[in-house]
């Protein structure tokens, strides 16, 4: 058993991006658009943290204010970008030709591959709460793709549910990587079994959990390696976890 790191919510990188001034073109929304971003790993100006974990390079806990705030159309290659909407509404536009609006529980997997652009916008009237996860691809310059799905918290209660990965009902990602979500009642214990030699990054969206013996509160996270069994105990009602399993 081995803990690579424990990252408390307040230790993450923090950026506050406004839609005026130097970022007026990059950040959509006017005149008072604000994006807040807590980064678990080094990202953009935040370079004093953890570089990544396995294939994960970005884990951003972001809030877009209403009024069209978000990121204007901008380019990507190669990265597989996933968004998990926690609240509000996210409108995603991409150069594959997709315009999609995602609400709480909805998520997408956008593989930029040989090249694509996207815009991420909150055109709703309340804040949009989104987790952005970027992972290295299994292959470079693959054809771009976009897939979306929905996590039904009520139907999946107290069950570790695979959202992305090689499981029935999950979105495929073409590599040994898996994203799961668990919404649990207080007091329940769950067992997560990473595939051989894989690591696990666990992030507390809501509530409180004890994971591999470490108590984690809201927006705390932990990474584990060399674990065949990871015990997860929900310590609060409606504890909500995002679990990313990656090769190391």
């Amino acid at each position, binding site marked *: 058993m081995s803990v690579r790191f424990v990252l408390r919510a307040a230790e993450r990188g923090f950026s506050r991006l406004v839609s005026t001034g130097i970022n007026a073109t990059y950040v959509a929304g006017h005149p008072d658009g604000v994006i807040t971003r807590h980064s678990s790993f*080094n*990202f*953009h100006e935040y370079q004093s943290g953890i570089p990544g974990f396995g294939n994960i*390079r970005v884990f951003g806990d972001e809030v877009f204010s209403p009024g069209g705030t978000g990121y204007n159309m*901008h*380019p*990507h*290659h*190669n*990265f597989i970008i996933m968004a998990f909407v926690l609240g509000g509404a996210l409108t995603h536009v991409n150069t594959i030709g997709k315009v999609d609006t995602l609400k709480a529980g909805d998520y997408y997997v956008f593989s*930029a*591959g*040989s090249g694509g652009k996207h815009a991420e916008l909150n055109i709703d009237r309340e804040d949009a709460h989104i987790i952005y996860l970027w992972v*290295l*691809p*299994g*292959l*470079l*310059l*693959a*054809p771009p793709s976009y897939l979306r799905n929905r996590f039904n918290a009520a139907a999946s209660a107290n069950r570790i549910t695979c959202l992305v990965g090689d499981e029935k009902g999950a979105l495929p990602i073409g590599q040994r990587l898996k994203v799961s979500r668990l919404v649990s009642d207080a007091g329940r214990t769950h067992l997560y079994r990473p595939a051989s030699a894989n690591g696990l990054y666990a992030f507390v969206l809501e509530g409180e959990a004890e994971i591999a013996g470490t108590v984690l509160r809201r927006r705390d996270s932990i990474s584990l390696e060399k674990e065949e069994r990871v015990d997860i105990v929900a310590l609060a009602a409606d504890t909500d976890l995002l679990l990313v399993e990656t090769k190391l």
Partner: protein
Amino acid sequence: MKKYLCLGCGFSYDEALGLPEHGIAPGTRWADIPDNWVCPDCGTPKSGFEMVEIPYSSEARPA
């Protein structure tokens, strides 16, 4: 010959291919690209690239 990925946007640089359209000849080593060079797509500095050992997709046309 190595490959490097921009951590800002995912743009990839392949030493074998260079970037002739940006004035970098095929075969140019990463170490020989100036330190003030930035990602042609997103402006991320050279220091924000990571060496990767990821094969190309069979459908890729990296040249």
